């Protein structure tokens, strides 16, 4: 057991699988000698050699395309897209090829590829270092979408993703790489060391894909969320004295529907929280599912908390970010209606 922040946990996950499975290959822009712009792959090239961890040309399409070829050969590529905002040049290879390969080859060619990418805002990254594009992947049959919210989960989920036989897009909330962030941008930052989930076991363990975590049990309302917003939701719950049940989905597809339904049937109210642009976000799917399956238990409409339907504007970081006030007002809305 070692105290690790999220970057260290992710780095360690790579080390564990690379040590045990020689077919795991790591590449992406700047991931080799330098270890990645967020240092998630630091030291891997030194530890495992230049042909196990190396820099790639600035071509997200080429990175995903060549990873597909490697997977066809029998390797398990773990690739880094430097920012989720830059995943689109690789989108065709992901949607048209990676996601559908097992299906279109009737199972002959599996694609155990993991695409890691830092995502989300809160770091003054402007329009192109802040996006949360998860809904563009949850709509794609054949892809799994995973988003951790703590170092413990990050390591366990990443190992599970790499060991999974199917392609996984693994979005890492970059705002919480160094510490949980409760949305109060005007308060001092907390390091992970003060959070129990920074106690990360050494060696191999997994957090299963497709299983949500009830991170706070409660009776008044169910909050469905993931990534950075888990911490914002928890803080809002405490600050507003709301006895919310906070569910960290961890995997968006396949979704842990049982945990969701059980909770909403208990609380009768539901808030879904995403950082992404509101319209057609994954929160829409959650709201649709909850009202489909828990309609007769619902005492109020499912309320969505989200980013606005604009690009992420540099100077307006904290107006855009769905922070404590948006949470508070939404909680009031869902509880009082």
């Amino acid at each position, binding site marked *: 057991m070692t105290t690790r922040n999220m970057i260290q946990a992710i780095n360690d996950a790579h080390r564990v699988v690379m040590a045990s499975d020689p077919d795991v290959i790591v590449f992406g822009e700047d991931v080799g000698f330098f270890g990645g712009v967020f240092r998630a792959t630091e030291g891997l090239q030194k530890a495992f050699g230049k042909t196990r961890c190396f820099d790639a040309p600035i071509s997200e399409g080429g990175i995903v*395309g060549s990873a*597909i070829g490697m997977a066809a*050969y029998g390797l398990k590529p773990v690739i880094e897209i430097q920012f989720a905002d830059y995943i689109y040049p690789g989108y065709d290879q992901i949607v048209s090829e990676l996601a559908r390969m097992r299906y279109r080859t009737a199972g002959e060619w599996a694609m155990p590829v993991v695409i890691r990418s830092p995502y989300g805002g809160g770091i003054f990254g402007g329009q192109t270092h802040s996006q949360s594009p998860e809904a563009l992947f949850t709509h794609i049959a054949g892809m799994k979408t995973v988003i951790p919210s703590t170092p413990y989960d990050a390591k366990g989920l990443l190992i599970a993703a790499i060991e999974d036989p199917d392609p996984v897009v693994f979005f890492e909330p970059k705002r919480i790489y160094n510490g949980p962030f409760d949305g109060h941008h005007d308060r001092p930052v907390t390091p992970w060391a003060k959070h129990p989930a920074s106690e990360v076991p050494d060696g191999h363990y997994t957090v299963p894909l497709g299983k949500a975590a009830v991170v706070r049990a409660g009776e008044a309302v169910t909050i469905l969320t993931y990534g950075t917003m888990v911490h914002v939701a928890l803080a809002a719950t405490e600050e507003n004295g709301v006895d919310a049940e906070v569910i960290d989905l961890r995997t968006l597809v*396949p979704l842990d529907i049982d945990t969701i339904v059980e909770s909403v049937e208990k609380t009768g109210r539901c808030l879904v929280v995403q950082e992404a642009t509101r319209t057609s976000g994954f929160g829409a799917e959650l709201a649709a599912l909850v009202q489909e399956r828990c309609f007769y238990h619902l005492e109020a409409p499912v309320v969505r908390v989200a980013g606005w339907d604009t690009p992420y504007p540099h100077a307006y970081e904290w107006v855009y970010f769905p922070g404590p006030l948006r949470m508070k007002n939404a909680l009031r809305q869902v509880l009082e209606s």
Partner: protein
Amino acid sequence: MTEPVPTRRNAPVLALHVPEPAYRPGDTPDFSSLVIPAAGDTPRPEPSVRAGETHPLTTALVRVLDEQGAAVGPWNPRLDPDMLRAMLRNMKVVRVFDDRMYRAQRQGKTSFYMKCTGEEAIAVAAAYALDREDMNFPTYRQQGLLIARGYPLETMMCQIYSNAADPLHGRQLPIMYSDKAHGFFSISGNLGTQFPQAVGWAMASAIKGDSRIAMGWIGEGATAEGDFHSALTFASVYQAPCILAVVNNQWAISSFSGIAGAEQATFASRAVGYGVAGLRVDGNDALAVYAAVRWAAERARSNGGPTLIEFFTYRAEGHSTSDDPTGYRPAGEEQQWPLGDPIARLKAHLVSLGEWDDERDAALDKEIDAEVRKAQKAAESQGVLPEQGFDRIGSMFEDVYAETPWHLREQREQALAEAREYLGHDIA
């Protein structure tokens, strides 16, 4: 204060150039001004040569078979007659197969078909030049690879009919074959995607210290996709052991090759800018194709790096069963195309060697016709497309993931219930 930069002078009027093929419907095509180097004229460097030294070959044309059917010059692979006959046979099988499947589509037995008429030498000779374990990342006009490697015609047809014996479970459009054992990667409907995949496979082979190489295939039209560039870039950077083949059949549906950039440069010459070896090859000359692929394979296999090969040919038929080329090019233009019919050229060569004659040729045609008909009968006995779609519905929900998650299980139940209601009887 900053000096103002000069302002615009009275410049000439700009004009957009929109490429146009030489001939349109109604014109009489005349290819006599096309410069075609004589067979045997193009030098052959050693496969270990520096990439730069191959670059003159990207504007030349590697040719072995001359007008009389003789094999001449440094690229002559000197194949033994048995192999030549085997290649001829496979090329003929491809053509007959194409004809019958085209007709099957016209008869309503399936939804779609694509021929490779005029291009048979390319895939078949490449299959012979590669090793059996090398992996292909093909487009939809390399059926010759599967046929030359002995993949059952009947299975191909079952795929085309999406029937009960279709190894792809009716999930893919006709001709989108896939077979790992025959080194034939799943064909994609999306153009170009397979090119960087081929490079990735080759990189993997190099990472593992294997000896197998990959061959990627693309049409000249699809070279405009970004994936072409990713493939060449990655191949060059990592010196991936692969062969990247552009089949330049001069047409991309209704667009002539000028729309893909052929007016200003050959497709082979794209190799230059990546420092990759490049060859331009007569695609209707089975021996030239064989020799070029063999050369590139040897280069790749000895860690000499990738080669880009352009096979210059002509798409003799429509793009697919959905296309009628007389809408955009002169009818019969393929007859004028000067590089001839690859099957006739290989046959003439065998005849000139005294290893073949019209009688044996006719007998072979008959044999192939029977073989293809037999396969077709066997395939059709397992169903044609219009009968499909209500058996094995459950299988439709498999292989989206290795394990079927709850939402797909629910959807499967719903789909089965609908099907039961529609059919009026129970199904599994």
